[in-house]
């Protein structure tokens, strides 16, 4: 399988420095992330590995600008989200950044049951005031679902639904693709098919960061960031 050329000297697509996230539940403080410093260069195919509750999803959510840090500095797609724990980008700015630069894939596919596959893929375009059905169909073709354009999620398998979700994440031509346990709801054969698809997308230059607790899957990534109890404990390439 071809691998993307990663230019480690180029400006990272996402970069965290001393990143922290504290959740408050009443008087209790939960430190989900502590002092995370990590960077993802353009074209990187990386994975955040760790057990449940380690902070993988929290890190992905911060990198995906769906949540904001309580400490440290975060830069994504050239924009400074937070610096020294202080927010630098408004909510509207974060929405726009997310819409234009980031694709997100969830464990549960979150496809709208009343929409067909191609309509689900087109959905993010609605928020960007665009309409490109041809490109949505092309993406579905690319993920191997060219024959399922007008099928609804209820007529598809778990693997097919995840492929529709991947096509949806790509519709806005993102610079960074984040996937939180993307193979958590599929069998191993389907998992391998999805992984191969990620690899193909990366070969085209897309920066991909997966969060998983699947060590077998992580072993096939270019780079693995090990997270435990909210800290990066090891990085392997």
């Amino acid at each position: 399988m071809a691998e993307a050329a990663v230019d480690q000297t180029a400006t990272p697509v996402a970069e965290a420095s001393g990143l922290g996230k504290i959740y408050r539940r009443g008087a209790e403080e939960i430190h989900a992330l502590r002092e995370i410093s990590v960077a993802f260069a353009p074209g990187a195919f990386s994975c955040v590995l760790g057990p449940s509750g380690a902070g993988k999803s929290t890190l992905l959510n911060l990198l995906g600008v769906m949540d904001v840090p309580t400490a440290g500095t975060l830069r994504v797609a050239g924009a400074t989200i937070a610096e020294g724990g202080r927010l630098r980008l408004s909510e509207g700015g974060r929405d726009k950044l997310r819409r234009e630069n980031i694709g997100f894939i969830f464990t549960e596919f979150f496809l709208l049951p009343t929409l067909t596959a191609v309509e689900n893929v087109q959905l993010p375009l609605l928020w960007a005031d665009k309409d490109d059905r041809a490109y949505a169909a092309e993406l579905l073709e690319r993920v191997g679902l060219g024959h399922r354009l007008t099928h609804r999620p209820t007529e598809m398998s778990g693997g097919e639904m995840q492929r529709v979700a991947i096509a949806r994440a790509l519709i806005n031509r993102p610079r960074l693709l984040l996937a939180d346990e993307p193979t958590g709801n599929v069998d191993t054969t389907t998992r391998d098919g999805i992984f191969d698809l990620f690899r193909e997308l990366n070969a085209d230059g897309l920066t991909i960061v997966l969060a998983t607790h699947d060590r077998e899957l992580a072993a096939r990534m270019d780079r693995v960031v090990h997270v435990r109890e909210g800290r990066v404990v090891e990085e392997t390439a």
Partner: protein
Amino acid sequence: MEYLRLAVKNLLRRKTRTLLTLVGIGVAIAVLYSLLEFQRGYERGLNAEINQLGAQIMVVPKGCPYEAATIVLHGGKWPRYMEESYFEKIIATPGVSQAAPILMDAMINPATHDNKIFLGITEAYGALRPAWQIDGAAFSGPAAREVILGTSIAEKLRLKPGDTFRLRQDAAGRAAGKDDADLTVVGVLARTRSQDDGFIFMPLHTLQTLFKLPGKIVVVLVRAENIDAPSLERTTQALRDLGGNMNIFPLSELLNNAAQLMQVTKVFVLAIVLVAIAIGAAGVLNTILMAVFERMQEIGMMKAIGASPADIFALIWTETVLLCAAGGLFGIGIAVTSARGIEWFLRRAMASQFSQLPETALIGVSPGVILLCIGLSVALGVLAGFYPAWRASAVKPIEAIRGAN
């Protein structure tokens, strides 16, 4: 893919719930539409009936003017008379163009409550009815034993020109020494869609003779030379100055008074309808809010893939407005398609307030009322959708996706 299409698809996700909410709004709007149309139809019908009288001023003996007006408009028995000679004073009054003396009487069958209404008229009455078309002929003389029948009564009695109309007095008539008579049907009126369709017309002197009311009349309809408000006022005053213990009032006054009476009823009924609409709004709010709670994760996903709070607000608001607008259209559809049934019900329900309602259809299709009802439905959606839309727009994507909400 556009907002509207997505909103429609979202509404169709829970078809039964959407349908029930839509029906709730529809019923409230149908009632509102029917009442507004009924009121407009009532005013329109009354106006048409007054216009068909061909007169602007009515002169009747003292008594309740509204009762008199009802008798004049719809026929009946009103035991207050004026002397026919008074008519000569009226016709000679400045500002009066034409005047028609009328005697009215009725025979009521107490078993069937069937009314036969008789109008004794002169040629002057025909002058106020230029649109009359008679199948047959006019009366041959001022005291001829002849009748002209309105089309409805002719159909009911199965009589045609040339037939004999047998006048048989009821018990009250016989007790008063009134005569039975056989009269020739000389003509049948083409349908006028007015009260005339139900009347039996005969020459004034014939009716006076048969009903033992020599020299008596009940009402004089007056057509003024000029019908602008100041001229009409002057003519009315001139007629009042004649004295003679008469009620003289312009028919526009009757219309205003009837409209005022209807207005009072309308305000009361509208208050009830508004309560129904408020309940409908609460139902819509509940439906949409439930849908928002059910779709929290989905809304979180939408935000995660780039939807802003304003986008989510607009989507939920669009759904609510669509639902209400569809409910409004459905309600108008119900009201228009079942107008006859609703009108029958309202006529019965309002019978106690209005002794006689215009005979023309009261609930029709009015673009103005349709637009008003649609506007109200949309406004309902705008109001009822605000809170659910705001709740949805305030969702934090991470918490929603985790199902924390």
